[in-house]
């Protein structure tokens, strides 16, 4: 196996888990944001500030 192929496999073995990890983080972020700031009509943003 050439060094470049080994490096490419390394990119995949690091990149895929990192990408999925970040996406899962964003999924959790969505749930947290929606739970923390439920929709109460148009005044909710004004109340926050």
């Amino acid at each position: 196996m050439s060094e470049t192929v080994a490096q490419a496999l390394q990119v995949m073995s690091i990149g895929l888990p990192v990408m999925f990890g970040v996406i899962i983080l964003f999924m959790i972020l969505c749930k947290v944001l929606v739970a923390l700031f439920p929709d109460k009509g148009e005044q909710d943003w004004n109340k926050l500030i």
Partner: protein
Amino acid sequence: MLQELWIGIFGLTWKHLVMYLVGFGLIYLAIKKDYEPLLLMPIGFGAILSNIPFSSAVGEHGPLTTLLKAGILNELFPVLIFIAIGAMIDFTPLIRNPLMMVFGAAAQFGIFATIVVAALLNFPLNEAAAVGIIGAADGPTTIYVANKFARSLLGPLSVAAYSYMSLVPIIQPPVIKALTTKNERMIRMPYKEGVKVSKTVRILFPIVVTIIAGIIAPISVALVGFLMFGNLIRECGVVERLSQAAQNELANLVTLLLGITIGGTMTAEEFLNLKTIMVMAMGLVAFIFDTAGGVIVAKIMNLFLKEKINPMIGAAGISAFPMAGRVVAKMALQEDRNNFIIMHAIGANVSGQIGSIIAGGVVLAVVGAMLGVK
């Protein structure tokens, strides 16, 4: 003296004529077939301009060279387009149903698989990474990463990316059908309105995503940050003029200049070689692997879920918006006239926008670290 007057004719070679055909071909596809006309038409014409012998459009002081330095080599044009894209995206369906984000990630599998395939075909790592990023199915991301790692391949990579994005309705269905059964394609997914997303959340989402993504991979801040900035000016509701300008004037102006400048890089010497053909082939491989990755992840998820997902939704996670979502929704209707999965498909498609820039940022960070590129 005569030779000076007719340098254009004496300088013409068969390679220039081939490039005129390439330019004509792209313009034809754009106008007659409606294949990504906003990009392919300017790229096609730029290719013609740059292949006229001794063209004043290119060369040291040519306008296309000036635009190349002003907007492509410094990565300005792609990031400006990200503002426009961000202003056009509504992340509400995604925030409401964040599970769809998994498909936005799964459908980027083609990027990494293609990097490996390109390495197997003896592309050096920097070029393999640039070729793999075609799988992001996102023009600005492709141009941004290509510019960092393989400037000489900018022309063929852009043409490949935009061509295959417009060919999604042809590329995806055979791959989806090969990986799914009829029963799986007929799985219904009733749409539930779900929790309402407040304006506060829609404002905080782009800000927090930028901070998180930026801290994890600082090299991705230009990509993620500008996309999310565009989204913020859309969602905040107090800069409607800027939002409209981003979605219209900015998008149109930068697209126009980007296209013709990319075309201007497609000189015969740079474009007519075996590598270009291999790049085009790799682009197709990337899109196939993307589609397969999304579908397979959906099928794996179905092993654990009570309420099954139609595995075609996984294929909608590709970033070609809204084409991929529409293709999947249409295929579902073809199998079952009453199976409407368009809302889920569009949710997955929107997630592809985030998935593609995160994948782009990850490739920039990992390959950049290996190659010492900042």
